[in-house]
């Protein structure tokens, strides 16, 4: 369901179904078939088998062992969305959308959306694994566009949960706050481009660790690339001892949580950086076998239209010492930037760029004026190494949208982090 401004744009109910078959014959490559016509299943198995045989390999593909699993993994629906009338869903979204529009007459446009889904996934393989999984999901998102003369600013709110109807009630205030911020940004100056000490808020720190580091820890990036493997050698120092990073697909109740991945491997908490040292990476069965490591349950596909590839689940920067708060991070900064929220982020391997939703200058150890167009750019290795303080105020940030890789978007993931300080980072803006 989607609103644009005051108008309901769409309200639809869809049903999608299909299948995916992968065949790996000894000495051959993957043969793959995806299809929407389930009647065709036997024919598709045959096609996938033929395709596998058409790909000859000198060096065979091996898969790391995973003990056969049999389970019904049924996640809690928390208010089954299928029982809620469309009109009720419209009312809920209308409330959040109206909360944004009511902030000011400078809010010229909004985009709000509500989406829920219950997927039922059956997975079987020829080694004896047989799984049934029920995965609920609900996402409410809103964008408020503020305009004054030619200036346009926006504020975003997004809540994405692997739960149901009960979990998305009562968020009016959060939508009001982002609309108010969009209005405030109209009058805010652009940040002056330069290198500063930078504090990332929980949300941006989470997006940062996912985008800038998480993707490099996906083993399909290194497993067939000796130079990349060297760059990502386990034991290499990536940061100061305060830095601990991991990915936990088994964490309770998060959007990136799954009992089993899409190859039938149980998910787990995988440490990636421990006290600044690279200690692990994320695997599918194929990448684990190739590198002689253990599968981590990170092979995921967004739907039956795609093969499982190595993906993150719930990626986090672990909290620093209890009691270290935001104020401890900024008290000795004369001039810096507090970068908050995330409009987006992109990495090209060791280079990254993140657009913060908004920011504040830090002056003489205190948060000062609101600034806009805060774009954080840099080199991953330098930036990770410049993380010198991590607060104890960890939160998971459960947004909608998701991660994109190899044409598969959006994959539900979660990011979590406390406030993080980077000694020095490049902030774009007016240059």
């Amino acid at each position, binding site marked *: 369901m989607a609103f644009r401004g005051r108008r309901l*744009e769409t309200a639809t109910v869809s049903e999608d179904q299909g299948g995916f078959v992968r065949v790996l014959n000894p000495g051959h490559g993957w043969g793959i*078939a995806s299809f929407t016509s389930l009647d065709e299943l036997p024919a598709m198995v045959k096609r996938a088998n033929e395709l596998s045989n058409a790909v000859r390999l000198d060096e065979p593909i091996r898969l790391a062992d995973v003990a056969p699993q049999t389970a019904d993994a049924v996640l809690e629906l928390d208010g089954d969305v299928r029982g809620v009338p469309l009109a009720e869903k419209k009312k809920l979204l209308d409330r959040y959308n109206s909360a944004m529009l009511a902030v000011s007459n400078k809010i010229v446009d909004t985009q709000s959306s509500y989406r829920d889904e219950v997927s039922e996934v059956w997975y079987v393989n020829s080694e004896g694994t047989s799984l049934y999984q029920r995965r609920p999901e609900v996402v409410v998102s809103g964008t408020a566009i503020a*305009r004054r003369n030619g200036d*346009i600013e926006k504020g975003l709110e997004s809540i994405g949960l692997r739960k149901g109807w009960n979990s998305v009630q009562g968020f009016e205030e959060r939508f009001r706050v982002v609309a108010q911020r969009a209005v405030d940004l109209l009058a805010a100056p652009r940040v002056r481009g330069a290198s500063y000490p930078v504090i990332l808020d929980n949300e941006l720190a989470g997006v940062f660790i996912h985008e800038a580091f998480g993707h490099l820890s996906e083993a399909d990036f290194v497993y067939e690339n000796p*130079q990349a493997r060297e760059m990502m050698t386990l034991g290499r120092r990536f940061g100061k001892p305060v830095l601990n990073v991991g990915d936990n697909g088994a964490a309770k109740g998060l959007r990136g949580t799954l009992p089993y991945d899409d190859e039938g491997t149980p998910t787990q908490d995988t440490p990636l950086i421990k006290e600044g040292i690279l200690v692990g990476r994320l695997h599918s069965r194929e990448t684990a076998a190739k590198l002689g490591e253990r599968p981590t349950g990170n092979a995921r596909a967004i739907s039956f*239209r795609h093969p499982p590839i190595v993906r993150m689940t719930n990626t986090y920067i672990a909290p620093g010492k209890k009691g270290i708060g935001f104020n401890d991070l900024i008290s000795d900064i004369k001039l810096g930037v507090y970068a908050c929220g995330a409009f987006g*982020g992109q990495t*090209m391997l060791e280079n990254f760029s993140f657009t913060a939703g908004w920011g504040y200058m830090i002056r003489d150890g205190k948060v000062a004026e609101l600034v806009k167009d805060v*774009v954080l750019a840099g080199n991953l290795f330098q930036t990770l190494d410049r993380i010198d303080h991590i607060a104890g105020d960890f939160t998971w940030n459960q947004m909608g949208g998701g991660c994109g890789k190899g044409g598969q978007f959006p994959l539900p993931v979660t990011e979590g982090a406390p406030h993080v300080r980077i000694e020095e980072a490049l902030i774009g803006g007016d240059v």
Partner: protein
Amino acid sequence: MIDRLLESARARVDGADALWRREEQTAVTFESGRLKSAGISEEAGLNLRVLAKGRMGVAGTTAAKPDPKELVARAAASAELGESVDLAFPAPSPQSLTPIPTFFDRTANASLAELIRMGRLLVERLARPECQVNVSVQREVADTAVGNTAGARGEYRATGIGVTAEITRIAGDDVLMIYDQYVGADLPSDADLETLVRSIETRLTAALKIVTPPDGALPVVFTPAGLAAVVLPLEQALSGKTVLQGSSPLAGKVGETLFDARLSIFDDPLTPGRPSSRPIDDECVPSRATGLVERGAVGRFVYDLETAARAKTQSTGNGRRGVFGKPHIGYTNVLLRGGDGHVTGVPLLGGGLIADIQDGLIVDDLIGVGQGNVISGAFSHPVGLAYRVQRGEVTGRVKDAAVAGNAYDLLKRIGGFGNDGRWLGSRWSPSLLLDGVSIARR
């Protein structure tokens, strides 16, 4: 299928239109120089829109044998919540649709072995020590049928082929990635593949030496690939949707010359041999070209049926729909032209625009394009792939630099149009030389 569905809709609602599409894809992928997988995908789906008591509703399904009654009931339920819209489905076109080649037998009939041969040719030609080569070849055959209760019908078959090649070179902590693609409706010739190889080779060779980036407001050549940050704001602002919503800075400026007088931008669904071309749009509106920017002046905005109805204008034939959502505005082939449009054989880096640059950049890829407040025109991105130009020559690759500017301001004065015009996905453009782009280095 469409006829039965529309028949069923006629009995229950005031009007309807529908799209049926069946797609078959065959893909082969080469990872790190070796053939890794071969796959097919088959998908068919039906999208229905209804008008009931002046309200619009939508439903879609991928079921193999969809029940027309059930789909109509679902669309009608969706319409009960919808806002009213004064939308009329187009009547059958008095002229026959413009015939354009969208279907190529040899693309449709290319064997798996032929797709593998093309991929292997690229892998072999691109192989270099210390470099990883990933290649994919994907072929698609799609059948589309559209129809509405006003009696309009359209049907066409289309082929598409996408060949991508990416070379990754890691030296210490320096990661260099160079990408290129061939996208067309017809199979690439070996000469086309050779052009792709040369394009990657040229950029790789010039990138081996790393030099310090310049600093300040300087001339920058945006290659067809690097141009996205500059074109994206225009594409958003020229959409009838953002105009209607009041968020387009170009709203109310039709006919005003806001850009360099040599610049023209068209949306042209009738370009022969392109996979985005089509004789009719997804809402039964016959295809025609739209002048978005004509000799520097703001031309037409693009519309689908609903946005046009709300804006009290006509659809430009830019309706696009998938199986599940409602139709929306989409560009087909976007062509950016200017200068004499001259294209030389295998282009040089910079499209012949660097001779007079004392100090500046060639930008081939920026990181984070599409993030942030795109429609405002302001952009600020670190470079993904960029080269320094000094005294008219490329001196090496720059890292750790960011470029910033405002697309609307920069396009007011274009320093030159390159001789390297080409397709990249569904956009055709040459390189552009733009002056006074802010460059910051770390």
